[in-house]
């Protein structure tokens, strides 16, 4: 029997996609690097300079002073969002995994429903709901809990990033729950039953059997979430404040600044974001590889 009808080189079929991606993506990285060195920023500079890097990392000047506090703020928002989403997803998934049959499919569908609301519009919904004159504040006023909009706590556009975290947690819990549920449903119940027969309590089974089973997938998924939260622009742009700002907001602001000298600094900040996201992605990939080798 022939195993393969196709004897042509695999690269012929890969060529169009590789060409499009490597040209566009490769060029964007090259031109980005060039700009971070002060080339092609429209300032007429013709030699490589590390000034933008110095400005950003030195902690002085407008770029540097805001860079370190933005980095800290970004790390805080991304870490808090990821941890809360992971804990929430684990809890919901374990609880849902006991349900079988038709409800199983409806759960999957319901969890997929969050895909209908892109981050951009989810952030707007939160803004309208949680702001000081939003729907929640109106309900609080109707119940007599507050008198004026100013009495309502600042939950969005706040300085500690609560609004941004709230947005990501509500969007990422369904995302991670689906990942954990997929693992729980693909695994046989045998281990759990054996442990029960041997007298393991409900908590022991959860701690020694269920959680170790789902942990690799949950970790990989959480790192995807971290990378996304750390590098996304829309949500902090809508739900954030003027200071402190998350790194992507800062990078774009510098890049689009009418002062062409700050373009290079914007580019440097965006490379810092890229570098951190890349490191996280590599860790996530290694985790997944080990997982499949087992």
């Amino acid at each position, binding site marked *: 029997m022939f195993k393969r*009808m196709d004897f042509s080189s695999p690269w012929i079929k890969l060529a169009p996609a590789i060409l499009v991606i490597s040209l*566009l993506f490769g060029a964007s990285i090259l031109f980005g690097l060039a700009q971070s060195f002060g080339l092609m920023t429209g300032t007429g500079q013709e030699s490589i300079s590390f000034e933008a890097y110095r400005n950003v990392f030195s902690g002085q000047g407008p770029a540097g002073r805001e860079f370190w506090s933005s980095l800290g703020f970004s790390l805080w928002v991304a870490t808090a969002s990821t941890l809360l989403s992971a804990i929430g997803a684990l809890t919901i998934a374990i*609880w849902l995994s006991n349900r079988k049959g038709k409800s199983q499919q409806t759960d999957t569908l319901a969890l*997929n429903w969050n895909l209908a609301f892109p981050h951009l519009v989810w952030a707007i919904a939160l803004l*309208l709901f949680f702001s000081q004159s939003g729907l929640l504040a109106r309900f609080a006023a109707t119940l007599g809990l507050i008198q004026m909009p100013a009495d309502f706590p600042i939950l969005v556009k706040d300085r500690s990033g609560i609004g941004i975290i709230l947005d990501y947690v509500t969007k990422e819990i369904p995302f991670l729950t689906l990942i954990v549920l997929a693992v729980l449903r693909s695994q046989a119940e045998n281990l759990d039953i054996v442990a029960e027969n041997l007298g393991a309590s409900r908590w022991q089974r959860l701690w020694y059997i269920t959680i170790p089973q789902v942990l690799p997938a949950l970790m990989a998924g959480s790192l995807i979430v971290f990378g996304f939260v750390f590098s996304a622009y*829309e949500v902090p742009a809508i739900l954030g404040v003027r200071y402190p700002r998350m790194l992507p907001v800062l990078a774009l602001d510098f890049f689009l600044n009418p002062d062409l000298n700050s373009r290079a600094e914007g580019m440097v900040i965006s*490379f810092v974001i890229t570098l951190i996201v890349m490191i996280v992605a590599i860790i996530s990939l290694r985790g997944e590889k080990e997982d499949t080798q087992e």
Partner: protein
Amino acid sequence: MKNQSAVIFRIFLYGILIAPLVLFMLYAFSERWFFPAPFPTAWTTNIVTRMLNDPRTTSGLFISIGIAMLVSFLSLLIGFPAARTLGSRVFRGRQIAWLIFFLPTVVPPLAVGMGLNILFLRLGWSGTLFGVILAHLVPTLPYTIFTLSGVFSRYDENYEHQALVLGSSRLRIFFTVTLRLVFPGLIVAGLFAFLISWSQYLLTLLIGGGKILTLPMLLFSAVSGGNPTSIAALSLLFVAPPVIIIAASARFLVQHGNTIREQY
């Protein structure tokens, strides 16, 4: 006891599912809604009608739909042969090809857009639909390839061999065997390429340079304008396609089985 908590959870879950839509409708159709009132005291359809008659909104809607449709079509067209090769064949350099497609999924659109901004400016592609569509391909094409290659790694080529032995032409095999078998995966990949392009703000901003006004661009300027009624009306228009798409493709989403790993 257990049943009761499940029912409560389900009510809560379904509540969250429709809450954004209800919220947008409350604001979009409100005429008078002073602070302590929990619901609008007077209703109107004027804002929504005015928005739908505004040439800026209608052209934004058509540009968004046009770009997203072309981007998802091109992603499937270019991605299909690549995904099939990547998913079903073993060859030297496979990991390198995989890496080339993987990198753009990691590097944020922010960095890609900022790099392409100056290049497209020099090529004269910035501010054009062509440039924006090309830029949107950077996030959508790898996503399409990975979704479809997952489908092809579970795909049984023997069905094609059987049809070939029975005397079918290659073209007929492609349309009656291959496409039929991978259809759910194809739908999911295409729809998500559409959604990624549909909600793209950064790349459109950095390449379109304010000349290509898609709905996300209008939405952002409405948010900075700060009028809740017009923000909500525009949001309703913006979520209508995703909501319809997800509702209509629910069957395929379950069939497809893979969790959607892309964020948009």
